[in-house]
């Protein structure tokens, strides 16, 4: 295995790519428990795909990745969760727009748990009956979102922001999508995306590196998955404009919920994706974090029932800056305030230095927890296709003038606003 060291934060990661293409990352830290996570690079925003050589693209219903995640725990003659629980381990799985992860945390019977994890993700068992049963369960999961004021505006904003990208669909899909999923859809997506070459295995905690990689290799020596598969995701051309600039939804709510997406076409100003992302996040922190004037304003202005939550996501060729806030009234004024704040290109060097210090601190905190270490590795492989072992140096070397140059001139003209108004719907 190859040893990689994250500079300045006392973190070593051992890595190897197996013959079948599986990428393995092992990290020993002084904890009693071990966290292991198997991640498929397949999430809720991929709906059209084919294997290299196939003539046609396959189109699957939204929510398929999440449905698949649920179904991977159903087996013909054993229950993976029972095995984990029998070993005293906790286990779960989750699906995002980009990935699906299966994980366990436990202190005992590590190899039995690891064997269980690998079997769980490599042994599909879908029947018409067990697919039907799952529809009732997942529909209830979806119904909770349909009652959530946050998800109502968030989900509508996705649809109003993207015309062609499948990112516009929610990870769970709609109730209709869930109802339409078949056993065949599940096998089709499984066979495409759950080949080891499209997966990442990350393990962190009290492990013996040599014994662990030996065990993993031994497991895969008994299972032939064929040659690594080349997957082609259908690339859709996405216009830089949003689909719909403004929409009001009515619900018998006590408060008003606002969700705003700024759709920003990427310009390759820095030629460094990591730094570009960091600078975009610093931009939001400069204007909307507790270090901005906003913290006192939202604390004292009684119209604000929450702070202004700001986040950045990279979707295809776009940065999406999203804002969510709960207010009593005056939604237009609040939306204008967010817009003005974002477009104000005056930046304070002292605040920049404080945010830089806070980022370096967060980096140290993120290595305290076995699960967070696995998350960090998975995210870096997904986004950069490598471990960012020089993160500390990059964060330490952030440059105020370069930051200003990167941010200034950013196109904030494409914006979508969704408001949940507190009125009775018809």
């Amino acid at each position, binding site marked *: 295995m190859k040893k990689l060291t994250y500079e300045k934060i006392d973190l070593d990661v051992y890595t190897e790519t197996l013959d079948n293409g599986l990428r393995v990352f092992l990290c020993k830290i002084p*904890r*009693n428990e071990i966290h292991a996570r198997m991640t498929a690079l397949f999430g809720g925003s991929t709906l059209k795909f084919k294997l290299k050589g196939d003539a046609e693209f396959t189109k699957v219903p939204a929510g398929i990745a999440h449905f698949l995640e649920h179904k991977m725990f159903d087996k013909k003659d054993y229950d993976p969760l029972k095995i984990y629980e029998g070993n005293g381990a906790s286990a779960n799985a989750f699906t995002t727009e980009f990935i699906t992860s299966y994980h366990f945390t436990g*202190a005992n019977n590590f190899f039995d748990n690891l064997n269980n994890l690998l079997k769980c993700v490599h042994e599909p068992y879908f029947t018409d009956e067990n697919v039907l049963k799952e529809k009732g369960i997942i529909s209830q999961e979806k119904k909770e979102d349909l009652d959530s004021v946050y998800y109502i505006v968030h989900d509508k904003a996705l649809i109003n922001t993207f015309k062609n990208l499948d990112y516009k669909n929610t990870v769970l899909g709609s109730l209709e999508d869930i109802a339409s999923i078949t056993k065949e859809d599940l096998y089709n997506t499984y066979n495409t995306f759950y080949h080891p070459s499209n997966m990442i295995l990350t393990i962190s905690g009290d492990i013996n590196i040599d014994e662990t990689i030996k065990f993993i290799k031994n497991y895969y020596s008994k299972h032939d998955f064929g040659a690594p598969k080349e997957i082609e995701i259908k690339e859709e051309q996405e216009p830089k404009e949003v689909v719909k600039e403004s929409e009001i939804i009515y619900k018998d709510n006590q*408060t008003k919920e606002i969700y705003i997406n700024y759709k920003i076409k990427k310009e390759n100003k820095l030629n460094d994706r990591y730094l570009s992302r960091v600078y975009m996040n610093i931009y939001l922190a400069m204007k909307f*974090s507790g270090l901005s004037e906003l913290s006192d304003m939202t*604390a004292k202005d*009684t119209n604000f029932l929450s702070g202004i939550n700001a986040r950045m996501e990279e979707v295809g060729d776009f940065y999406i800056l999203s804002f969510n806030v709960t207010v009593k009234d005056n939604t237009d004024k609040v939306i204008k305030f967010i817009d003005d704040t974002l477009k104000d290109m005056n930046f304070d060097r002292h605040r920049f230095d404080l945010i830089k*210090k806070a980022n370096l601190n967060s980096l140290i*905190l993120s290595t305290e927890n076995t699960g967070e270490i696995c998350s960090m590795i998975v995210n870096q492989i997904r986004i950069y296709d490598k471990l960012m072992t020089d993160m500390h140096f990059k964060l330490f070397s952030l440059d105020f003038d370069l930051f200003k140059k990167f941010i200034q001139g950013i196109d904030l003209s494409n914006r979508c606003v969704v408001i949940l108004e507190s009125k009775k719907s018809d």
Partner: protein
Amino acid sequence: MKYKKFDLGNYNLYTIVTDRFKTIDLKINIRIEKKKEYDKYIPMLWRMLVSTSSKYGSLKEINEAAVDIYDPYYGIRFISSGKQDVLSLFATFVNEKYTEKGMNEKNIKFLADFIFNPKIINNGFDNEMFEAKKEKLIDYYLSTKDYPREYADSRFHEEMTVFDYKEYSLDEIIELTRSLTSTELYDFYKKVINEGKLDIFISGNIDPLKMKEIFEKNIKFAGKYHEDPVHVFNQTVYNKEPNIVIDNSSNVQSNLIVGCKTLDMTDYERKYVSLLYSWILGGGMNSLLNQTVREKNSLCYYIYTNRVNLLSILKIYAGINGEDFDKTYRLIKEEMKNVENGNFSNDLLESVKNTYYNSLIGIEDNQNDLLNSFISEVYGVSDNMDVRREMMEKVTMEDIMNFAKKTHIDTVYLLKGDRS
């Protein structure tokens, strides 16, 4: 792991030395006996303490000062612990070994000031911030209906009598909050300081004597020394015919809460048997309720038990379709009966025990868990970790069946959704 207790006159300082973390965890806890009339002050007090400062003029300045000392993560809450309410400041900060010398003391001083040195003007809290926080809190109460799970829980607690008094309804608490003044809140703060029992807990790669010196130098606590208070509250009565309350809403999903009381709970049951009962009934994915209500009948996505052992109550939460209420409630009662009759496998009992043993090992992996575990020992509501494992091994299927026989459904609340 080395534990040390320092008697600092009117309070105790507890240190835990461990070299497994790059961070230090701190908890400053003040316990006061739970009283109905305190409920109007509690939500306002922690909100004021965490957002004002006698030293800094604004929240922005507080936040800047925090980043300047390497950005500690912190918060203040009142935590319910049986018959006690605990005003708790909790914080995690990077050990100065990874930042700069002197930062540990600076962090402790910065954090302790929130509790011991609040911003007071004219014998009351900062009135401008107080009025803003009060209005926001009232709006928060008024908007609870927008958050179905939260609203259902709030309504459930209006219906189920847990203490020897009936808790305030949402309408009552709104009116009481409306009439509260910053001077009254400051009087309550002084009461908490004067009558509360203060304990400070700190863990990490630290020198206990140095910590003692830092706290002695930086904390001026005006309260008196108090004996350890009692946390346990016993249930003596329950509704023999469960009180079933159904409210209609315009939500899609229906939120069900089944509230149970256990009578005559022994100390052994409270610490051990109740946990296994709760996990067997509605803990993990293999629990009886998950297997029956979710997996076999596809009635829900979530169903779980929530045990409040210091109050001898247990709640079962589920998100279902409104029309499935009768069926779900029947299945819940059947599964409770199954535990009572011992109709659960020994494998399930062993696996929940294994989960418990694993959680004991896992406590040392997380400083917050480590501190909480130690605090529960100091508060007398848990045994030490060695005893815990030993005692849990002794729990039998009969113990769980007997416990189940003493556990009764008292109140059932359904927030029924009718939007398709």
